[in-house]
């Protein structure tokens, strides 16, 4: 524990440097805007702004990009409460009771509870991250290629199990991502794979053009400007402070949302989205006045808002400690670290302590910044929403092109982004979630390398994955999850269905 505190002190010495503080502030500010603006999620925001970090060192880059991620969770609540528009998918549940509170003239209280809940949950998440990540990284040093292969398979199966779409759809998308990840020169044999004589494809397909195309451009193509109308219910910010009764009603949901969100955040999947749905369902289930949900229940704002913030912090645990992305956002953050020559994983703590602890300490500071930003400046942020969409989306397309081009100064990347934008548009039409595709693309090189190394180590004996205790345990969990999915399918009782029922029950 003493060593952890010493390391944290080192982290704070990095986080309090004026330049690092500045980039944390920029990240939080941009994240809040990204969270508020419908059509730009944290993934698109981070991907588009990734090239801006190329001139920075790894610490400042990751501090800024992570600030965008958890800042977007704060910002998403503003549009949900004031306009009933979820700026970000994780804020969907906040729309229900947050907007109802606003209609009752309690917009200020709802915003304050959402911001304080987000702050408490975010800080709780960082404290647990501080305690859990280093020992987990130490444990992961025991991992060899078979364990990594099993861990990545578990990541994909978990993602499919937790996904809001069907198991087959999610695994299909992950397969497409893995296939895209195979493009380029095979590092073990030197074969060119699917590069069709385009030399730029020799290094493979980048994560940035794929992510920006699928999530940035794809979203724009699916959103005709004529359907985007912004109506703002004027917030009564004079009543910003919640009443004593509202504080009392929000305390327990914030605590429960923090714990639940962090636990859900650790497992792969769109954790910050799922956690807010789960928290809402939990709060309604245990409430003594469930009939209040949908009509402005304080717990319906406090729980989900806390849960999505804790989940976004929890997602950093496997990323930092194991080098395992749990979703597309952490995948892009991992890519950002790799671009800066800092591979995330078990060696990060020992080889780059300044980056690791500086990043963690900056999250404590970032959560404070967000609390200070989100309450007094809410009126200013809301005015950004008045930019007509007809002017906003051309701006986003410009940033997409600049962002993607600047990674490698390659027009081929811009073309890949455009193709992925069309693919993203098509996937939305056919009800596919593109997130597993990005995850598959990110893990493909590590997965292939560890799979082939495992087989080489065992001279082709595939039982190596079952003879080693850690790998066998991870694969057993995979088997259990697949069996649980099969049972859900056969009995037609699935947690997604229950959540959907809970959600539609509220909206009726």
């Amino acid at each position, binding site marked *: 524990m003493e060593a952890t505190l010493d390391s944290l002190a080192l982290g704070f010495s990095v986080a309090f440097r004026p330049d690092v503080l500045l980039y944390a502030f920029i990240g939080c500010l941009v994240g809040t805007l990204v969270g508020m603006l419908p059509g730009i999620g944290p993934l698109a925001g981070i991907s588009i702004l990734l090239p801006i970090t190329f001139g920075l060192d790894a610490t400042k880059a990751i501090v800024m990009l992570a600030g965008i991620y958890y800042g977007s969770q704060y910002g998403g609540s503003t549009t949900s409460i004031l306009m009933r528009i979820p700026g970000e998918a994780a804020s969907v549940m906040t729309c229900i009771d947050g907007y109802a509170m606003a209609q009752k003239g309690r917009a200020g209280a709802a915003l304050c509870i959402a911001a304080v809940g987000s702050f408490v949950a975010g800080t709780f998440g960082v404290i647990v991250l501080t305690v859990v990540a280093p020992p987990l990284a130490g444990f992961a040093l025991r991992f060899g290629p078979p364990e990594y292969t099993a861990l990545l398979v578990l990541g994909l199966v978990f993602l499919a199990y937790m996904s809001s779409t069907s198991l087959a759809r999610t695994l*299909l998308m992950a397969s497409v991502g893995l296939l895209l990840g195979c493009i380029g020169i095979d590092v073990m044999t030197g074969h060119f*794979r*699917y590069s069709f004589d385009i030399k730029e494809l020799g290094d493979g397909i980048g994560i940035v053009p794929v992510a920006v195309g699928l999530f940035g451009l794809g979203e724009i193509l699916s959103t*005709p400007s004529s359907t985007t109308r912004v109506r703002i219910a004027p917030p009564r910010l004079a009543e910003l402070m919640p009443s004593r009764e509202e504080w009392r009603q929000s305390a327990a949901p914030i605590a429960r949302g923090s714990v639940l969100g962090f636990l859900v955040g650790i497992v792969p999947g769109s954790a910050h989205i799922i956690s807010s749905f789960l928290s809402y369902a939990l709060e309604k289930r245990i409430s003594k006045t469930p009939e209040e949900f949908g009509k402005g229940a304080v717990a319906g704002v406090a729980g989900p808002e806390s849960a999505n913030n804790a989940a976004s912090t929890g997602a950093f645990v496997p990323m930092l400690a194991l080098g395992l992305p749990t979703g597309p956002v952490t995948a892009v953050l991992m890519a950002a670290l790799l671009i800066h020559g800092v591979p995330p994983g078990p060696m990060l703590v020992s080889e780059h302590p300044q980056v690791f602890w500086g990043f963690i300490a900056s999250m404590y500071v970032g959560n404070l910044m967000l609390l200070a930003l989100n309450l007094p400046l809410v009126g200013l942020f809301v005015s950004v929403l008045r930019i007509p969409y007809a*002017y906003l989306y051309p701006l986003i*397309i410009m940033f997409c092109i*600049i962002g993607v081009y600047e990674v490698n100064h390659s027009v081929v990347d811009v073309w890949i982004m455009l193709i992925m934008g069309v693919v993203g548009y098509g996937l939305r039409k056919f009800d596919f979630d593109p997130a597993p595709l990005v995850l598959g693309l990110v893990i493909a090189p590590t997965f292939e390398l560890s*799979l082939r190394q495992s087989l080489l180590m065992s001279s082709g004996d595939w039982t190596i994955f079952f003879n080693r205790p850690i790998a066998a345990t991870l694969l057993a969990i995979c088997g259990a999850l697949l069996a649980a999915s099969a049972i859900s399918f056969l009995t037609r009782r699935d947690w997604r269905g229950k959540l959907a029922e809970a959600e539609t029950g509220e909206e009726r």
Partner: protein
Amino acid sequence: MNLRLDHVAGGVFIVAGALIFAASDDLPFGTLASPGAGMLPKLVMGLMMAFGLVLLLRAGASPRFAAVAWDDLPHALRVIGLAAAAAALYTTLGFLVTVSLLLFGLTFAVERKPVLHAAGFSIGVTGLAYLLFNTLLKSPLPRGVLGF
């Protein structure tokens, strides 16, 4: 038979898998003891086709294909067409000219904004972006044949 969404989706992935499989002739699968460059792609392709088949078999539960709303398609085509033209001209005409034209095209031609508004917006935003990336962030943007 009513054509369902997953009939089309499943079929597309199966056909795509088969086509990529055919294009993978030169990639050796290898053996378990010595995996080749084609092992993972072919395994993944097999999985992709299998999941496509699952969609196809369970397509009855998916919405009818005719029920999919395509009313946003014309807007999407105009946007992607202009973006593709910008990508094609980006390194030839350079950032300033290409992006100004792209923004003008999107606001004036696609969104039907008044010509002066569209022109002012396009030139102003392009100039600010150039200042931000090229000058402040020292991230060089492409220059065109005209030298800027």
